[in-house]
């Protein structure tokens, strides 16, 4: 996934060059969980243990009860509502178990599929930053979507 251009098209992160890079990435995800600094779930179908994607709160702003969500998935599974399903479960965990007050997601404004997933889950566009992201020699725009915790009855 992390070397596939279809997956990484809108993700401004270094591509792994080797299996060692991937192992280091997995180790980093595990360490974040151990240190309570972030949480990443591997996604699989219930009846197939093979990894199909991952979703995470990779940046926690504990002071403000806020976190940033991020996700990616193998293109074979695109267009089936799978990421929406995963996001819904992750948000439920974020609001009800972690006690977050708000969640944000940062995306490329060109990443329509991702923006649709966010909107379907109730996220609202709160920011549009021009040229705030330098990637491969170019300044790119980013959009920020946010979602507040559902009001408690």
């Amino acid at each position, binding site marked *: 996934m992390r070397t596939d251009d279809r997956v990484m098209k809108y993700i401004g992160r270094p591509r792994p060059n080797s299996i060692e890079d991937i192992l280091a990435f997995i180790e980093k995800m595990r360490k974040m969980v151990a240190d309570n600094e972030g949480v990443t779930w591997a996604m699989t179908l219930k009846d197939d243990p093979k990894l199909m994607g991952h979703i995470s709160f990779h940046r926690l702003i504990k*002071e*403000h*009860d*806020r976190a940033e969500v991020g996700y990616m998935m193998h293109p074979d599974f695109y267009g089936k509502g799978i990421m929406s399903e995963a996001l819904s479960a992750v948000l439920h965990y974020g609001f009800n178990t972690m006690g977050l*007050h*708000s969640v*944000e997601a940062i995306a490329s404004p060109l990443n329509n599929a991702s923006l649709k997933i966010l909107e379907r889950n109730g996220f609202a566009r*709160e*920011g*549009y*930053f*021009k*040229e*705030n*992201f*330098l990637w491969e020699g170019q*300044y790119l725009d980013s959009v*920020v979507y*946010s979602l*507040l915790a559902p009001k408690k009855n």
Partner: protein
Amino acid sequence: MLNINFTPFPILTTSRLLLRQMTMADLPEMFFLRSDEETVKYISRPRAKTYEDAARYITMFTDAAANNEGITWAIAFNDKPETIIGHIGFWRIIKEHHRAEIGYLLHPQHQGKGIMQEALTAALDYAFNSMHLHTIEGGVNPANAASIKLLERNGFVREAYFKEDFFWEGEYHDSAIYSLIAPKAKKVL
């Protein structure tokens, strides 16, 4: 990646002001600035309750400059360089994206006289022409009309309004982010 070096500390001057490095000699004025409710009304950072608290702010600013992680200038009048009336700086630099976050505060007695405008002009000039930043952002409390006016007068544009993203004294507050892109380099004709 930006190559930033704040040593020796860059002193800036304007027609009325001296922007210099802060030292522990500024402690009494810093204590006032960081504890006076009117000054920090819209600044959601812990108030200085003691001189030690104020000293921690000074150390934070000097350490940031020494480590090239941020720069904050003490603002004083040219003819009274020992008395600081405020400060302005880029306290968070995102080197990877040539971006930084600006912050400032000013003694209420000196507000409304174009002083922060003068300091901001000098700071922005330094940011774009010496640090070579591409963009600058300012996060403000949406109720802080004076600060928003200053940003807008300098070309900053509201790019985000985050609802309840900031927890402060038991409540979630909104915040607004204003941004400015570096002026396009002038074309030589």
